[in-house]
């Protein structure tokens, strides 16, 4: 049932750029292999070759002892190799069942056999633990559910080797646990799993061995049980990541609240949310997917309707109806959806960087030269690595795109900056840069809000953490309460109140 794979001297070039420099290693059947590497290390390209989306320039791919050169993903799929993309490959307007059988439709005579497809899809949905009717439109699913549909689709194609590229990037803690349980079941069935992630704690807990790639080359492989997180990080980066998080500097006790929100209610999402962020403070926002963190801030920005709530910036009540109003008052929000809401990936770097300040800088004509100079400054200041400053944003790696997005959202010099999942899909090196930057922002006296699904990040970065569950504020945890256990228990609403002051928020939110 399992499948063995061997890469021999795989080289891949895109035009003049060589991204894989002779990769050599084998995947043993029936194991969970963690593939580690910074963005740009070549992991995704190698896996695309394995799954038939790309062809190697030279070198051999051997599957079950036979050399293969897949013309397309369908040929790889026929051998049982399936790749679950970072960005899903689902047709949003079609139903789950239609997606699962896309390209492999069941027919009765000339007509589609919808009933059979729906029934069979239900079986796969059950296998992946998704309790949704197969005739639901994919557009109506949340991200975690779409992920499960992707896996169900792979199972329906009788996958024997499953490649998962950053599968937990947008999953909450609970959903992540379910995914790992599913991976364990698949492994027990003999499915080989290649697992790509930047989350080293997950690597540590759920893989049998790790394979490390760096700069388009295979570096080493090691049994997971012999390798700890820090060693993995060092192997990936090729240097010692002594400290991911800079030391915390707490804002002075009398620092003024720069953003104060009271009684925010967003129909369908948020019920009477109160919080404040002081100058120089980093406030984390924890919660499961669907807890309403992103929605709360979108409502503050006027991107969704709010039915109640008072917003004060710098001590003055403000009326914000659009991101533009928010920016005028010194509040910027960088979305978690970098490609959909954060950056114009088809436009150039300069255009992206200056997008929010065009009107301020135009006099009245745009000064392209000044824009270029600003880009040069930003490239240095934010440590953006690139080949060609004239390229489109899409050709940057995830980490560099994120740095560009940060530069863009900071150009208007906001007093309050809200960063939604600031390190999603970002490699370890860039992560550390971003953490340092966030600290600097707070050090400059700005109020910083960080929404994140990575608990370690929230704990390592934040001065305080607000925990949402089901649209209600469960609690705000102070520095002495920031542990994974406490965060998870509040986020899942399973916290047993021990201290009276802990109980206060939980109780008032529930009743």
């Amino acid at each position, binding site marked *: 049932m399992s499948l063995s794979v061997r890469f021999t001297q795989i080289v891949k070039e895109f035009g003049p750029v060589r991204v894989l420099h002779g990769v050599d290693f084998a995947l043993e059947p029936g194991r969970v292999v963690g593939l580690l590497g910074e963005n740009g290390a070549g992991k995704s390209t190698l896996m695309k070759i394995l799954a038939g989306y790309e062809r190697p320039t030279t070198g051999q791919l051997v599957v079950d002892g036979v050399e293969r050169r897949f013309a397309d993903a369908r040929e790889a799929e026929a051998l049982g190799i399936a790749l679950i993309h970072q960005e899903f490959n689902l047709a949003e307007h079609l139903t789950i069942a239609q997606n699962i059988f896309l390209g492999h439709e069941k027919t009765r005579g000339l007509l589609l056999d919808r009933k059979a497809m729906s029934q069979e899809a239900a079986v796969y949905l059950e296998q992946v633990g998704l309790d949704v009717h197969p005739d639901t439109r994919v557009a109506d699913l949340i991200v975690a559910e779409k992920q499960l549909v992707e896996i169900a689709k792979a199972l329906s194609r009788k996958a024997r080797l499953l490649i998962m590229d950053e599968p937990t990037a947008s999953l909450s803690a609970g959903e992540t646990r379910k995914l790992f349980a599913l991976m364990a079941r698949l492994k027990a069935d003999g499915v080989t799993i290649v697992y790509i992630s930047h989350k080293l704690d997950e690597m540590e807990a759920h893989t049998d061995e790790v394979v490390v790639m760096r700069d388009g080359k295979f570096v080493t492989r090691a049994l997971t049980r012999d390798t700890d997180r820090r060693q993995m990080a060092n192997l990936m980066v090729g240097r010692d990541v002594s400290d991911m998080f800079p030391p915390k500097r707490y804002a002075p006790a009398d620092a003024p609240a720069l953003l104060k929100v009271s009684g925010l209610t967003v129909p369908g999402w948020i019920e009477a949310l109160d919080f404040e962020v002081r100058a120089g403070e980093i406030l984390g926002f924890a919660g499961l997917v669907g807890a309403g963190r992103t929605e709360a801030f979108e409502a503050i920005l006027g991107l969704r309707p709010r039915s109640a709530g008072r917003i004060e910036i710098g001590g003055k009540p403000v009326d914000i109806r659009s991101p533009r109003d928010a920016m005028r008052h010194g509040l*910027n929000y960088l979305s978690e959806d970098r490609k959909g809401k954060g950056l114009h990936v088809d436009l150039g770097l300069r255009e992206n960087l200056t997008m929010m300040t065009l009107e301020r800088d135009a006099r009245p004509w745009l000064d392209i030269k000044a824009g270029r100079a600003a880009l040069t400054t930003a490239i240095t200041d934010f440590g953006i*690595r690139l*080949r*060609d400053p004239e390229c489109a944003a899409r050709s940057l790696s995830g980490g560099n795109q994120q740095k560009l997005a940060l530069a863009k959202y900071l150009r208007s010099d906001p007093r309050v900056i809200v960063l939604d999942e600031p390190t999603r899909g970002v490699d370890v090196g860039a992560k550390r840069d971003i953490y*340092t930057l966030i600290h600097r922002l707070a050090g400059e006296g700005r109020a910083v809000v960080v929404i994140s699904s990575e608990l370690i990040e929230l704990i390592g970065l934040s001065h305080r953490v607000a925990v949402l569950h089901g649209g209600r504020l469960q609690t705000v945890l102070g520095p002495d309460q920031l542990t994974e256990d406490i965060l998870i228990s509040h986020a899942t609403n399973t916290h047993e109140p021990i201290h009276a002051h802990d109980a206060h928020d939980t109780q008032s939110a529930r009743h």
Partner: protein
Amino acid sequence: MNQSTPTTPTTPNQPGTEAAPARPLLARLKGIGPVVALVLLCIAGGLLNPDFATVDNLMNVLTRTAFIGIIAVGMTFVIVSGGIDLSVGSMAALIAGAMIVAMNALATGASPPGPVTIVLLGVALALAFGAVFGVVHGLLITHGKIEPFIVTLGTLGIFRAVLTWLSDGGALTLDFNLAESYSPVYYQSVLGVPIPVWVFALVAVAGAVILNRTAYGQHVQAIGSNEQVARYAAIRVDRTKVATYLLLGVCVAIATVLYVPRLGSATPTTGILWELEAIAAVVVGGTSLKGGAGRILGTVIGAILLSVIGNILNLTSIISVHLNAAVQGVVIITVAYLQRGRRQ
């Protein structure tokens, strides 16, 4: 350029430019396709008929291009922003009709003002109509949340039907004396160049400057590239979109102001298929119908290219002039084919 923005997370690897590869020749030639096609066509035209390569003929072609060209400049903004306007031909007809009716009424009223004043009032009225129609389109699309295709398909019918009703199915003809004082706007030349060509050039230059050198123009491109990203980046998406339709409406009005003195009348067939010619010029010029990026210069060349085809067919006898639209169609498809690789 506020550089009090935060600085320098310590960077592990040297940031910045890593050996920028030489830009491939093809990439640098990008967008030059229509120019090459135009040059080749002109050479072919000159070889086939010596009359083609004369200043007179050139000016003739450019004058005829002016109407569609001016509309196409406005259309470029709408298409780059991700929209479309199917109504421009009907809108031109209705503006022409309304203009003629109003000017005739002024001329035959009690104590009429001088013909020049009447013409100026007519021009002002035309521009106002164009602006209002554009704003109505924009508001229906943004606040009404209706697809631009549907909105302008609707007004395409409405505008033309109103004109047909105004003209009672026949022609609305400008008062003879007014036509006399208005006709130089189409027929007169300044420094050897006909007025419509001057206006076309002015509109094109203004359009290029606005699209590439103003915040508004960048916002139009940003919205067409990804509306959500633009919204999150504090851009006034709705207002910007309305402004593109307003701009197009004004362009249609300007084209109409130049067109009316040519024949001095408006009929139910005035401006028929102008929308498709304008859209074709934009697309041939290298602007993607999906929006996001476009070039005014490309549009100008596209418009000229399409009318040069007709002109060459008129001057030579190799292909029947009745096949004009067919040749244009082949050119449109060929250009789109050659550009398809760049839209990745």
